[in-house]
């Protein structure tokens, strides 16, 4: 499944709905569907907000594919990139009451593998894998 979406908040729901359909069609268990839905939501929200900075002329590309081990998700933006290690740990006591900064924690918690790479031609790709 591949979809290209504009950089606006509504795209998060659209991507999640597509991911849920894909996961259901693949016959995945409910827990795995929840994990994929959440990971897609968080990664697309990051791409829209922090990657493309709500610039609707920049696309967010989402792909989901079945692999030998499970499901692979890729989300690409066309922003200037970021370093995940720069994001403060939201579970540190001093960050507990911050309103933002938990999306990457959820992606890492619910996916088996999460990796960020710089895309050819600019932007960032987050690749996530979930084993069956």
């Amino acid at each position, binding site marked *: 499944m591949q979809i290209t979406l504009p950089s606006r*908040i509504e795209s998060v*729901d659209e991507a999640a709905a597509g991911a849920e359909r894909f996961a259901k069609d693949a016959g995945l268990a409910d827990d795995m569907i929840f994990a994929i839905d959440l990971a897609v939501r968080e990664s697309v*929200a990051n791409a829209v907000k922090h990657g493309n900075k709500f610039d609707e002329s920049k696309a967010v590309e989402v792909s989901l594919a079945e692999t030998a081990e499970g499901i692979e998700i890729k989300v690409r933006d066309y922003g200037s990139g970021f370093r995940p290690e720069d994001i403060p740990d939201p579970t540190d006591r001093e960050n507990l*009451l911050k309103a*933002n900064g*938990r*999306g990457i924690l959820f992606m890492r918690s619910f996916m088996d593998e999460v990796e960020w790479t710089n895309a050819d031609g600019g932007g960032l790709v987050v690749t996530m894998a979930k084993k069956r």
Partner: protein
Amino acid sequence: MADITITERQAGDVTILDLDGKVTIGEGSVALRGAIRRVLGEGKTKLLLNLGHVGYIDSSGIGELVSSFTAVNKEGGTLKLLNLTEKIQDLLAITKLLTVFDVYENEADALASF
């Protein structure tokens, strides 16, 4: 259809907000923020959020719960959570927010705690 419906009830001096739907980035989070601002504006500072019918929440929704908690505290009030679903409980555990929120499984117990 709206992502979320928020219904207000009063039990003595405690205001209960029953949430039904999704608390996710966009409409759901904005609706929760609006409801909290409105009740605080009416001088109601003992708040109980009933999350029993929240089918889905994301990091934005969790962030909105935290913002609600701090906004109520700032007014000298208290915000507590009622009827967490298993998924919400998991997400609050992962984020260590179960150490922050006062959480109840039973409405009568929650009301008695204020």
